[in-house]
């Protein structure tokens, strides 16, 4: 008797959890958005996250438009690791951008292999994607520490306006004599704040991709019959890439 009830419950639970395509006219493939609810939830989440990042970037934009003078990014972001003292404007950040875009491509490849149920292919491309993410984070860490070493803080900017509006840099030894920020402090504040917030997203993305990799290697998705989880995490990862494209434009190019 008890077993029967359990069986019944099992059946009901199973029915409950296989809902979208069995009981719903508009569930599954025929749904309004043409995507399973997991994927549509991820899309909608990214939409809302896009609003968050727009809010942040607009905070930066409104302040930048309001300011009289802004340091020239070509003179601020001009150093490269291993090329000490050499002047390479925008060199390093272009490498960072390339790394992140390539890592995004690798994840696309993982998703495509997922559609063919090619477990090994998914794993390999995921590993490449994760390496790309970690490399990007490493680059960002190097860039941050370089700026911090030269005296930049979220509330302190060593790049100030010369007499003709050219960008000058306060020497490290002089910093002690200038308690107030010599240049517009929001240049540093918005840079650290927004690239930091983006970096947090990258970190989360790397963690998600690692979870996907572990589950791929364990065969969880293979048993499930589809690699939709890789696709969902992938969407998130591309979104991180998408945000970076705009951060790159607004902080480094313009």
């Amino acid at each position, binding site marked *: 008797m008890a077993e029967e009830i359990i069986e019944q419950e099992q059946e009901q639970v199973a029915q409950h959890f296989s809902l979208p395509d069995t009981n719903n006219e508009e569930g599954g493939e025929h749904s*309004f*958005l*043409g*995507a399973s609810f997991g994927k*549509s939830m991820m*899309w909608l989440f990214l*939409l809302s996250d*896009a*609003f968050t990042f*727009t*809010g942040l970037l*607009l905070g930066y*934009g*409104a*302040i*930048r*438009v*309001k*300011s*009289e003078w802004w340091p*020239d990014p*070509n003179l601020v972001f001009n150093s490269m690791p291993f090329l000490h003292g050499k002047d390479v*404007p*925008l060199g390093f950040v*272009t490498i960072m*951008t*390339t790394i992140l*875009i*390539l890592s*995004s*491509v690798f*994840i*696309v*490849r993982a*998703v*495509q292999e997922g*559609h*063919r149920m090619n477990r090994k292919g998914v794993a390999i491309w995921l590993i490449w994607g994760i390496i790309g993410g970690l490399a990007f984070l490493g680059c960002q860490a190097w860039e941050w520490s370089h700026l911090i070493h030269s005296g930049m803080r979220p509330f302190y900017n060593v790049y100030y306006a010369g007499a003709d509006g050219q960008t000058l840099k306060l020497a490290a030894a002089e910093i002690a004599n200038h308690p107030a920020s010599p240049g517009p402090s929001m240049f540093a504040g918005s840079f650290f704040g927004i690239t930091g917030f983006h970096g947090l997203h990258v970190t989360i993305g790397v963690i998600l991709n690692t979870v996907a990799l572990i589950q791929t290697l364990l065969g969880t998705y293979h048993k499930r019959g589809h690699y939709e989880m890789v696709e969902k995490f992938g*969407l998130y990862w*591309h*979104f991180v*890439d*998408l945000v970076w*494209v*705009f951060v*790159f*434009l607004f902080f*480094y*190019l*313009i």
Partner: protein
Amino acid sequence: MEAEAQYRSQVKAVWRATIIIGIVTVFEVSLALSHFFFFYEHPKLVINVFMTLATLLKAFYIIAEFMHLQYEKRTLIITLGLPLVFLTWLIVVMLVEGKFAFSLLH
């Protein structure tokens, strides 16, 4: 075999998008650098507009190709696209406000 052909064409499409994004990035950076090295005395406005357009192009390829949106159902595209109207309005308002604050200060 049809699935295999489809797979190949998708892979090709992704690498094609990658190359386009790469070229656009190089274009952007060279625009910025050309201003820095050759036209430093001139206002940057025109170059900024071109770089913004280039970034929007990159964003389009990331969303359409990497995020696979151009192959999704039209309703999803519309659902995600329409709210951007609100963002546009927010962007316009904030930039106008920033300019207005600038004009008050100077």
